[in-house]
């Protein structure tokens, strides 16, 4: 069985950044594995711009962003396998994979970085009533058809959900000559970034209906129309507030789910809120030497943050394989308090924090003029004033190594106050 220092599962932005950083930090034999025919992951179907503003200080398309990392990976002579599906990973880090040229292959790695990303919620995941005609796509699938494979998905389109991909596809299909009739969002606020509401919907006069959802799909072979209902504050349709929209295509942009079948197979602990592995400050999961980064851990809104997080995973995986096994004190656990859905990382080992550690979190609803308060017991560690917070934008708080020393009961809580 061939042995590697580090195996990286997934060749999207997370896997690329992690593999590159691991190699740069002294890991010798790094292998990256991806199931698609090329590296870059979903970035390769993101022809729109808005990537790289934090990492490169310039605005790139998804494809341009991917190309910079792919080039660097190749320059560093990092080995990669494409068109290869990983079937199983054991706690001993034996990886079973299959592809057309080699058949079934087992390798062993000293550390593994999980970077499988996420997948889209489908019609089945949200249970829309109605018939089951063709013409219903998740937004990302439609994006792949239009931007890579050259198939137009439809001419008269309704979009459910105001996630970023849905809004980006509203613009994309409009530019390609389709009529996007409406974007319906069940929540009282839009899911995606403000930039996309303005540049993808308002620029093209596409109406956004908040507090609305689809209650019926009509059509035998191809979709013919949908019934959109206004919903109350509990997201229940209001009787009589219905409107029928004729359409030949329905796109769903109703959320993303981290893809963790492999993680479950290894036995890493998952966070029920994020759907991703529980990780510490080094992006290491609850299984020694198994790291995770990017959307497989929690769904990010900017790829730049995925890159940062994945570099951290790559660095730490490299130091793990070179490593002297060190003893660490009990970790501090991070606890989401009032108004916070989740916090990543879940654990912080103080001895591993050199200068500071960043906590990433999402709030559970819109807040204006509030504070994010980091506390340990009754001791306040940090307060940040926030004019505006919403679930669609990830919040980030940096905690210095110095202030971690004031944590006494091994727990940090973040509250909205």
């Amino acid at each position, binding site marked *: 069985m061939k042995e590697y220092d580090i195996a990286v599962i997934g060749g999207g932005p997370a896997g690329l950044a992690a593999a590159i950083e691991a190699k740069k930090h002294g890991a010798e034999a790094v292998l990256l594995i991806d199931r698609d025919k090329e590296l870059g992951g979903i970035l390769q179907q993101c*022809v729109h711009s808005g990537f790289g503003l934090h990492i490169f200080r310039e605005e790139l*398309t998804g494809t341009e962003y991917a190309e910079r990392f792919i080039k660097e990976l190749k320059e560093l002579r990092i080995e990669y396998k494409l068109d290869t599906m990983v079937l199983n990973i054991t706690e001993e880090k034996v990886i079973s994979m299959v592809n057309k040229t080699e058949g079934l292959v087992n390798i062993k790695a000293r550390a593994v970085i999980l970077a499988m990303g996420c997948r889209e919620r489908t019609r089945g995941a949200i249970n829309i009533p109605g018939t089951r005609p063709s013409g219903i796509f998740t937004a990302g699938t439609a994006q792949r058809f239009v*931007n*890579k494979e050259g198939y137009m998905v439809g001419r008269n389109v309704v979009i459910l959900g105001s996630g970023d991909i849905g809004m980006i596809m509203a613009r994309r299909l409009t*530019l390609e000559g389709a009529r996007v009739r409406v974007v319906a969002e069940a929540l009282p606020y839009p899911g995606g970034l*403000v930039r996309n509401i303005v540049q993808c919907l308002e620029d093209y006069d596409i109406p956004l209906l908040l507090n609305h959802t689809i209650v019926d799909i009509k059509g035998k072979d191809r979709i013919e129309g949908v019934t959109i209902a206004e919903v109350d504050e509990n997201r229940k349709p209001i009787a009589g507030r219905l409107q029928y929209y004729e359409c030949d295509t329905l796109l769903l942009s109703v959320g993303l789910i981290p893809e963790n079948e492999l993680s479950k197979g290894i036995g890493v602990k998952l966070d029920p809120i994020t759907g991703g592995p529980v990780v510490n400050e080094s992006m290491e999961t609850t299984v020694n030497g198994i790291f995770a980064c990017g959307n497989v851990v929690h769904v990010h809104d900017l790829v730049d943050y995925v890159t940062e997080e994945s570099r951290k995973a790559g660095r730490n995986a490299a130091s793990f394989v070179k490593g002297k096994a060190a003893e660490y004190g009990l970790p501090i656990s991070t606890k989401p308090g009032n108004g916070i859905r989740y916090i990543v990382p879940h654990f912080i080992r103080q001895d591993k924090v050199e200068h500071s550690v960043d906590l990433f979190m999402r709030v559970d609803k819109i807040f204006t003029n509030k504070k994010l308060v980091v506390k340990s017991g009754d001791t306040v560690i940090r307060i940040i004033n926030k004019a505006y917070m*919403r679930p*669609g934008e990830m919040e980030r708080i940096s905690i210095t190594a110095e202030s971690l020393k004031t944590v006494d009961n091994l727990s940090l809580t973040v509250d909205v106050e």
Partner: protein
Amino acid sequence: MEKGIVTCTICPIGCSMEVIGARSSDLGYLVKGNRCNRGIEYAIAEVTNPTRILTSTVRLNNANLRRLPVRTDKPVPKNLMLDCMKVINLVEVDTPIALGTIIIEDILSTGANVISSRTV
């Protein structure tokens, strides 16, 4: 003078800003509703000359990939987006193509080139 309502995209707050022509102001405009100063320049540009980077794809021959992603190398006026698409939709290219290759020069005399946004 131009005036209008602009949603700011500089930060996630998305202030709704009102822009009014005003001779008394140094900038020629008064901006209201912005919570910080970063929105002012953006708001004025949005009512006087709104521009965007246009991104799309063109038909790609002789490759597994059927569409080549392209973009304008500088922002083009917002009201020309659909006209630019008509020009872009007429183009077919053959591989190999390097990132940054000019696909359409000076599209609709905007001064912007349409360039390839990946290598195939």
